[in-house]
């Protein structure tokens, strides 16, 4: 090739090729920043976070707010004190235990149960859902039929049956709720994976020679995370409620242990004479479930890219 033609070619490539016309860089805002911004615009979600933060803080640092032990400080002279008593702001229960302190300590159990159950159901459900959706075939059939069996039972009936078999304890409540809860996660995840695995970027990652596990968990799953996170958040609220229900039915923890459902159960006898015994644990359950649901709703809106403006 002569010098001249070379020059001409170089000139051609230089003048036309780097001309990336009109491709100025856009302001880069990260995905999470966007999500946070949208989340903050949702008033209820922010209120939910606010309530949840205060609740969690007060439950964790319960000894700072109350000097009474929720179990041991029984003062039989001070039974059923009304709301606003000098030492006991929310009154006392039938054994003279401080209700405020029982609610704070009880919150530890309830919230922790909600969180643990939610995390474990998510892990198990997502794992099985991923494998099911990605590989399909007999594996998918096998897992999904199991899921069908679980979902065919009414939730509480199944939970009661398992609780009855395992025996009463908070650990068993957690175990039961995990056993009952994972199938809906598996189904949700599977559905997401099924639609995502046909995407071009997944084909592209297959063509790049990545392993199945890598594609499944690092390429497909992150795209499916939004609904999973939403479901997990909503599940925390639901679990608090379910755990309280099981405890209310007397299937759960020892009745001396503070737990919101247990407290409600004990308060039944005094419904008319001392309604504050049932009102406050009830309010605690409602508030925390409600705020978790608001957070979940807010997350759903924030994570949905179609809502982007």
């Amino acid at each position, binding site marked *: 090739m002569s010098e001249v033609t070379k020059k001409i070619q170089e000139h051609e*490539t230089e003048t036309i090729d780097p*001309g*990336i016309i009109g*491709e100025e*860089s856009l302001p*880069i805002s990260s*995905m999470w920043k966007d999500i946070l911004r949208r989340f903050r615009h949702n008033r209820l979600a922010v209120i939910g976070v606010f309530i949840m933060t205060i609740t969690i803080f007060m439950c964790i640092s319960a000894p700072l707010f109350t000097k009474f032990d929720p179990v041991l400080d029984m003062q039989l002279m001070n039974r059923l004190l009304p709301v606003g008593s000098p030492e006991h702001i929310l009154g006392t229960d039938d054994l003279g235990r401080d209700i405020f302190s029982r609610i704070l300590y009880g919150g530890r159990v309830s919230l922790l149960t909600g969180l643990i159950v939610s995390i474990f159901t998510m892990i198990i459900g997502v794992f099985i859902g991923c494998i099911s959706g990605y590989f399909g075939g007999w594996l998918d059939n096998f897992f999904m039929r199991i899921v069908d069996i679980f979902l065919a039972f009414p939730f509480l009936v199944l939970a009661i049956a398992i609780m009855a078999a395992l025996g009463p304890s908070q650990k068993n409540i957690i175990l039961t709720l995990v056993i009952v809860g994972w199938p809906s996660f598996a189904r949700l995840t599977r559905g997401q994976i099924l639609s995502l695995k046909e995407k071009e970027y997944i*084909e*592209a990652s297959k063509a*790049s020679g990545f392993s199945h596990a890598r594609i499944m968990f690092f390429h497909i799953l992150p795209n499916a995370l939004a609904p999973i996170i939403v479901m997990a958040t909503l599940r925390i609220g639901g679990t608090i409620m379910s755990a309280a229900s099981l405890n209310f039915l007397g299937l759960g923890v020892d009745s001396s242990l503070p737990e919101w459902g247990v407290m409600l159960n004990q308060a039944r006898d005094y419904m008319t004479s001392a309604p504050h015994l049932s009102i406050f644990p009830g309010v605690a359950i409602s508030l925390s479930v409600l705020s978790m649901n608001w957070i979940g709703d807010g997350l759903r809106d924030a994570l949905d890219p179609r809502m982007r403006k």
Partner: protein
Amino acid sequence: MSDNALLEVRDLYVQFATPEGIVPAVDGIDFDIKKGRTLAIVGESGCGKTVTALSLLKLLKSPPAKITADSIKLDGLDIYNLSPNEIRKIRGKDISMIFQEPMTSLNPVFRISKQMNEVYKTHTNLNNKQIQEACIEALRTVGVPEPEKKYVAYPHELSGGLRQRVMIAMALSSKPKLLIADEPTTALDVTVQAQILMLLRRMCQNSGMSVLLITHDFGVVADLAEDVVVMYAGKIVEFGPLNTVLYSPKHPYTKALIDSIPGLRVKRGGRLNSITGMVPNLLRLPEGCRFAPRCSQANEKCTRLQPEIEQISDQGVACFRWRELN
């Protein structure tokens, strides 16, 4: 066909089992890609171009797809008989692929950096810092402006042309022996198409790799390819070096294709031809030559018997009548 072939495909069949019957998407084709050269597979939609490309890497889901071949050899290594795990190691390393849709070929939830790093991590043994430098360098090579900035961007922040450049950079990162480009410019607008084609040409010249180009656009073929294979309804109808095929096509289908684009055989002011009829349904293929129902030159023999490929020096043509017609 020749000794210096990088990829030799012999008697490749791809069939899809559908409820209506078995669809022979690729029906016994042979082709070679020579070292350092670009081979284009041209044809209408549904003629089996993409399926051919995907079957080389066994990227077709089977079932329903069933791939059979005498042999598929990459640089002497028989990749047809490799286990799924071994073929996975070839993908992205020895054979890379660029897809048609740059808009959807990048994972929307990760930054470019993460997606590029992953490819490097899988196929090279550089450390993190070297990988980052290599990525930014690769982005610069493919003509991404402000590569440092684009490196940390999300795919939705890039235009289609830029995304295709990123895809090319990723595909070339492992210095593959063969690059499969499946309609790399179809989804892009014309000015960006020209840039991407120029980029691809520059990249293959510099790296000396072979390219398998899948396209329906003779303009792209004329721009990039050195050898051409024309496919019709799952079979090869003609192959040869670019200039031979472009300027003295032997098969009536190739002629008709070329006559339907301005500027090659049809001169300014002339009338462009169109091929009448439709691509045959692969479930109900004609008995004889597959092009016969649409061929203006077909005679009774064409509708009865299937023509074999006949080789004339380095050109090949599957037609009974090519001699009388030229």
